[in-house]
């Protein structure tokens, strides 16, 4: 089985990732993916670059555990998460979450579940460079609310 989680500085090729995820598994009838990208605005301020920090070791373990959880909650066949770290620029890809299942419902839901989980429980931190200087991105209450929909109440902020 190929790796389910990759944390990397380099970019990723979505088509290649999706092809690899569904290759050789004839049971799959649905592939759902989410791609997060760098915005050029943050609360009205222009963002020139974004630096992503993570906790090596824990990040991979945390996301592996989230994928295990997704497999117990949803009828899915495979999942893949790629998350970039280091220096990124507006329009760059940050994260890919992709899930496969027999029919679309389960992979749509599992994809959203994994993203909601990752946003509040995976140890990553964003720092934006703006004309006013560098600033750490604040966590959003709405992200905790999104995770709570799945019955998980582990507040991030």
């Amino acid at each position: 089985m190929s790796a389910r989680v990759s944390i990397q500085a380099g970019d990723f090729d979505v088509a290649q990732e999706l092809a690899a995820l569904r290759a050789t598994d004839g049971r799959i009838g649905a592939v759902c993916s989410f791609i997060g990208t760098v915005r050029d605005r943050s609360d009205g301020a222009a963002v020139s670059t974004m630096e992503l920090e993570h906790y090596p070791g824990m990040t991979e373990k945390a996301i592996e555990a989230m994928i295990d959880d997704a497999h117990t909650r949803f009828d899915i066949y495979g999942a893949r998460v790629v998350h970039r770290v280091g220096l990124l620029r507006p329009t760059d890809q940050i994260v890919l979450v992709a899930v496969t299942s027999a029919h679309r419902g389960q992979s749509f839901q599992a994809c959203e579940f994994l993203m909601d989980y990752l946003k509040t429980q995976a140890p990553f931190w964003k720092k934006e460079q703006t004309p006013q200087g560098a600033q750490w991105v604040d966590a959003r209450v709405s992200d905790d609310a999104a995770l709570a929909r799945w019955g998980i109440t582990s507040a991030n902020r």
Partner: protein
Amino acid sequence: MKVNVKYFASIREALGRGGELLETKAATVGALRDELIARGGPHASSLARGKAVRAALDQVMSNEDAALAEGCEVAFFPPVTGG
């Protein structure tokens, strides 16, 4: 006991270091945080009670009641903002 403490993001920047090896009498994650706050200076301000600080014990998100063990790894960091 000896613990390996790690700091990330804004807390790492405020302390000017990514971690330290400590000898502590603290029995829990919360007690260790209080011990660090008691040092004063940037430790007191960046880990202050009332600030949003999260913790992990041996690389798993933890609450402050979690019990420390010899050689464990404790991390303190602000709310996470990935994705």
